């Protein structure tokens, strides 16, 4: 069970969280302006890297806020967590202990 640091509540057990997939995939401001291919990529295509991944988590059974995390998908180590709507921090896996 992961230990996830909620930006509002601090370290909490994974049980309290809901996973939300890749972060920084903004919903297009005007979906109708997208052609079918662009829209289907927004809907269905996500990255799945081995290594540091920016992803969304919701502290569903805590403060219920969505936030983002950088997690190394290979080691499950969290590099950092940061509020939704802020830019991806410039950090690498080596920045974690």
């Amino acid at each position, binding site marked *: *069970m992961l230990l996830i640091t909620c930006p*509002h*509540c*601090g370290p*909490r*057990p994974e*049980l*309290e969280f809901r996973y939300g997939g890749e972060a920084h995939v903004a919903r297009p401001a005007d979906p109708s302006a997208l052609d079918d291919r662009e829209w289907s990529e927004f809907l269905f295509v996500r990255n799945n890297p081995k290594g540091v991944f920016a992803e969304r988590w919701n502290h569903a*059974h*805590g*403060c*219920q*806020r969505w936030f983002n995390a950088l997690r190394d998908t290979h080691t499950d180590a969290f590099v950092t967590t940061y509020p939704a709507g802020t830019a991806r921090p410039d950090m690498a896996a080596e920045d974690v202990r």
Partner: protein
Amino acid sequence: MLEIRNQATRTAPFPLATETVKGTAIAPLPPRARLSLRLRPAEAARIGSVAGLPLDRPIGTFAAHDERRALRLGPDEWLVSGPADETDELGARIAGDLAGIVHALVDVSHRNCGLAVSGAQAEAALNAGCPLDLSLAAFPVGAATRTLLGKAEILLVRVDAACFEVECWRSFAEYVRTFLVEAARGT
């Protein structure tokens, strides 16, 4: 006339008897007025307090004033509570304090219900289903948070070193109470 003749009575979601197992007492709490208050953090900081309750306490703690309490559950979420017969008064007071400020105030007095769990083994009993570190250092008196107890979501409040209050939605009350009794047996 009719309102008086047919005045509805109130039925609690669980039996009101206290159950004590291996020194841990699980006691249903009387109803309270409960209002969910949502307010942007910057506005909360500016206003400072509502109904005499400070809004600036850290997330995961509660503030108390007389019989009233404000649990800070998130950056923009408080659960304000008071005596059961003060729902309207409390709501009006908060609405007055927040006049002209964007906020949401929703009555959830009947949604939530509470249990007190007390005794030297209360911490251990709660940890049968609550994954948080409930030691006094990590979860001191004054702590209040949403979390889990087994398969139910709860609000957990530490009112004393050996006394916690557990709140849940009313349809989970039977599960939560049964879980705590079983947990106390397992300590």
